[in-house]
Every structure is written in structure tokens, then in C-alpha cells.
């Protein structure tokens, strides 16, 4: 049963992150996702300290706001401070993450997180924190409920705003010209990434959030030419890495989050080798046989 809950938790994180990650990857903002996933840490710690509990709403809102703040800082330093974007990302997220780790070590007694767990989470403990009905029947782990709620929100965003997100991602100038606000959808997406990150952080840690934000979408990107299919495939790839990662971790008795990232990497490598169209052997074959597609 524990295995089920752990894999389910991993899968919920994988689907939420993978779905949003598709847009990050297509917008070439994968590293902004990486930055957010580190930057929310001080927000989580502060939410802990202020609310004195694991109240999910304080947590999601407080830390989510810090995530949004980090993207805002990155943009401000890049645009107004005229620092190149990659450096701006690097400066901002390392700073926020460092502050988070320091806060944890300073308030170790009051904050139920430790330094290493912020990196690779404590997914193994997920099944221990259960929710109960009034009559005492178990409803399953709390985390699963929170992550389930976040997943619903993500799916709602992506399906209601499908055309807005697609248009601003593919051609932001055109989108702006027809009156779709690029800023609005940028921050909506970043807000969703922040929320998802915060909800996933405790169970899987910063690293696996990055892994799930980038690897399943990039793998799906090698396998299909249709955005809806890419969204679906990325969910499948994510679930497979959650399940496979758990098996691997059990086999060698190591970190579950680390193992899930490794299995994700293996899936990407497989796609790289065997994708019918965008795999490397396929590319080489195409180049030698027919050169580029002929003009018009």
C-alpha cells in the first residue's frame, strides 16, 4: 500500500509539473522553472514560521507568492538592471535558495524540514501523514489530496486557456497584436509553476521538481508534433518515471526522488535513440537518404 501511495504521489507531481513544463520547454524557459523550484524555499520556511503549522493554504499562497516574486526579480534585473538573462536567473535563485537553507538551519526546532530533504524530499514519509474522516476512516495521505487539487487546477488552466497559452507560446508578438495579453499569461503560467512547485516540494524536493518540469516534456517533444499529444505523452513519461524510479530506489536502497530523476533521464535517452522522427539514428538516416525536404 505504501508503494501505491508513493507512486501515486510521484505521478501526481509528474503530471502537474510535466503539463506546465511543456509550456516552459516550448518557451525556452526551462531554467526559469529550475529557478522557481529553488526560489520557493524561503517562502515555504517563512510560511511554516508564521502559520506555525502545515496549513496548506498559507503554504501554497505564501510560497507561491515568493515563486512569482522570483520571476519578477529575474525579469527586473534583466530588463531594468540590464544584466544578461542567464546571469540574472543564476543570481536570483541561488540567493533565495541560500536564504531558505539558512532559515532552516536557524529555526531547525520550529521548521519540520531539514537541509538535505529540501533537495530530495521525503516522499517515503508521504503515506505516514494520513487524513481521516470524522468517523475515523482513512482518506489516504494528506499530500495526495493537496497534489490532486493542484493537478485539477493545472488541468483547468491548460484546458480553459489552451488557445491563449498556445498562441503566446508560439508567437508572442502575434498574440499581443491580436489583443491576448502576453504578460498576463506569462504570470499565470509562472504562478501555476510556483504553486505546483510548492505543493510538490515537501514530498519530492527541488531536484525532482526540476526533473519533472523538464524531462517528461522534453522526451515528449522528441516523440510528437502535436501539442495536445505532447501534453498527454509527457504525463505518461512522468508516471513511468515515478513507478520505475520507485522500483529502482527499492532495489538499491537509495533516494526515491533521485531514482525517479534517473529513470526519467533513461526515458529521455530512449526517446533520443528510438524516436521515429526526431531520434538521432532517424535523423542521420534521413540526412544521408533524402537530404532536407525539398523546397515548396
Amino acid at each position, binding site marked *: 500500500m505504501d508503494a501505491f501511495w508513493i507512486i501515486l504521489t510521484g505521478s501526481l507531481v509528474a503530471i502537474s509539473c510535466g503539463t506546465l513544463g511543456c509550456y516552459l520547454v*516550448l518557451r525556452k524557459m526551462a531554467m526559469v522553472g529550475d529557478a522557481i523550484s529553488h526560489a520557493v524555499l524561503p517562502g515555504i520556511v517563512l510560511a511554516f514560521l508564521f502559520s506555525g503549522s502545515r496549513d496548506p493554504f498559507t503554504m501554497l499562497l505564501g510560497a507561491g507568492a515568493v515563486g512569482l516574486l522570483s520571476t519578477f526579480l529575474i525579469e527586473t534585473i534583466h530588463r531594468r538592471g540590464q544584466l544578461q538573462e542567464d546571469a540574472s536567473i543564476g543570481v536570483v535563485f541561488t540567493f533565495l535558495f541560500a536564504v531558505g537553507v539558512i532559515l532552516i538551519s536557524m529555526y531547525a526546532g520550529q521548521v519540520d524540514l531539514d537541509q538535505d530533504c529540501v533537495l530530495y524530499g521525503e516522499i517515503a514519509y508521504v503515506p505516514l501523514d494520513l487524513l481521516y474522516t470524522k468517523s475515523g476512516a482513512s482518506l489516504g495521505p494528506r499530500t495526495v489530496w493537496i497534489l490532486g487539487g493542484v493537478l485539477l487546477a493545472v488541468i483547468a488552466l491548460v484546458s480553459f486557456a489552451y*488557445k491563449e497559452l*498556445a498562441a503566446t507560446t508560439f*508567437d508572442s508578438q*502575434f498574440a499581443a497584436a*491580436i489583443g491576448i495579453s502576453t504578460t498576463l499569461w506569462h504570470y499565470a503560467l509562472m504562478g501555476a509553476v510556483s504553486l505546483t512547485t510548492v505543493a510538490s516540494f515537501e514530498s519530492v524536493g527541488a531536484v525532482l521538481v526540476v526533473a519533472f518540469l523538464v524531462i517528461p516534456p522534453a522526451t515528449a517533444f522528441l516523440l510528437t508534433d502535436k501539442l495536445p499529444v*505532447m501534453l498527454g505523452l509527457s504525463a505518461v513519461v512522468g508516471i513511468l518515471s515515478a513507478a520505475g524510479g520507485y522500483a529502482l530506489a527499492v532495489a538499491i536502497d537509495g533516494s526515491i526522488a533521485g531514482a525517479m530523476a534517473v529513470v526519467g533521464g533513461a526515458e529521455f535517452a530512449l526517446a533520443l535513440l528510438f524516436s521515429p522522427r526526431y531520434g538521432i539514428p532517424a535523423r542521420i538516416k534521413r540526412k544521408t537518404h533524402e537530404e532536407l*525536404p525539398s523546397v515548396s
Partner: protein
Amino acid sequence: MIIHVENPALEIHNLTVSYHRKPVLWDIDLTVPQGTLAGIIGPNGAGKSTLIKSVMGLLPADSGYAQMFGEPLDRVRRRVSYVPQRESVDWDFPASALDVALMGRYARLGLFRRPRAADREMAMDCLKKVGMDGFAARQISQLSGGQQQRVFLARALAQDADLYLMDEPFAGIDAATEAAVIQLLTEMKQAGKTVIVVHHDLQSAADYFDWIVLLNMRLVASGPTDQIFTQELLERAYGGRLNVLSQVGELLQKQQFPARERKG
């Protein structure tokens, strides 16, 4: 020589646009009449793309404004279509030619509304008009440069606008495609639409356009082709930049000085 007309499709009034405080367009003031096929012509870096981006509200202006059909852009957005330079997007995006053409319909759909069957049909029609109906299901990265350009055109057509602003629709396409496209644009003009095209090739410009805007940091000339296409005006547009203007621009940037005094 700057010729103004009454009741224009596009009016640009004293438009100054800067990047990081350095003006790249100085006080552009022009009108383009309705129902014309107009060319914006100038050397590399003249500010042609900047001009239409600013007109479309994609870049803030230091001074001045643009109006279409006598109204600010926000009031007539649906009547205006913009075709960016082809290099401005990543063609690896997972979409088919039809998906892209369908984006032209997004302007008419409200927030959160999905395209309907009628929209798909219309998008398909537009692909047909540009001769791309055979490629509707193709992933866009597997189209040649000219085909991608035509997909962009189809998307613009799907907007069913009255004014089209196109940034270098002829860049990197072969002669046959160019002829087909110009044919299409001419038909649109004959249907009463106004088409404004950024163009590079002086040779063909005189044949294609009936209104020409010569640009090089400032407006050199604007008017009917036969009056503008003179040796003297072309030399002025291509004869390098105005030295004083460039120096003043650099000075403004260095001193972080506003190109326009703020009111108040």
C-alpha cells in the same frame, strides 16, 4: 517628399521610438491611403520592423501615436492583422500548418472560447488560397521557408482584417512563390484591403507597390510610387545615416536623457 492623404488606413503622427533611450526612429509622420498595396523600404537597420512593431503597440513610443481608420489600435484591433518576421518564432513548435492558420481566428474568439468547425473551415480555405492546403497536417518545421511564410500569410488571411502589416513576407522565398504571393496581395488590394509590406528588394518594389514609404531612421519620403521612386530620394534613403542625428541619439543614450520632455 511626404504626401499626406485624407481618410487614411494608417496614420502615424510624430512617432519617435527608442531602444534603451537611443531613438532609432525620429518623428515619423505619414499617412497611407486605404486600398493600396504599400511598401516600406529602407536599408538594414533603418527601423522598418521597429516602425510596424510600434504601430502594433509591441514597442512603447517616446512620442506620437498611430491610428488605423482614424481610431487607436485598441478600438480596431480586429480590423488589423500583423505578420511578424518569419525568424521571430521557433518553427519546432508542435503544431501543424492548419493549427497555425487557425490562430488567425483566435482574434475573433473571446477569452477561453474554443475554435469551432466553421473556424477550421475558414482556416482551411485560407491555406488553400496560399496554395498550402496540401500541407495542412504537416508539422511546421517540415515546411520550407517559403511554405512557412505562406502559412503565416494564411494565418493573416484567416483574421479577415482590413489592414495588413507584414514584416518581410518575401524574405527567403523563391521567385515563383513570390509571384504567387504578390498576386494574392494584389487581389486583396482590389477587394479594398490595405496591405503594407516591409520590403528589401529595390528592383521589384516599383512593380509591386502603388505607395512607397522610404525610411532610414527618419522618414525620407512617403507617397505614390511614381513620385517617390526617384534616383534622388532613393539615394537619400540608402546614402547612409544622418551623422548629426546618430550622434544626438548616442548622446541621449549616454546621458540617459529623455528624447521627449515629460509634461508637467
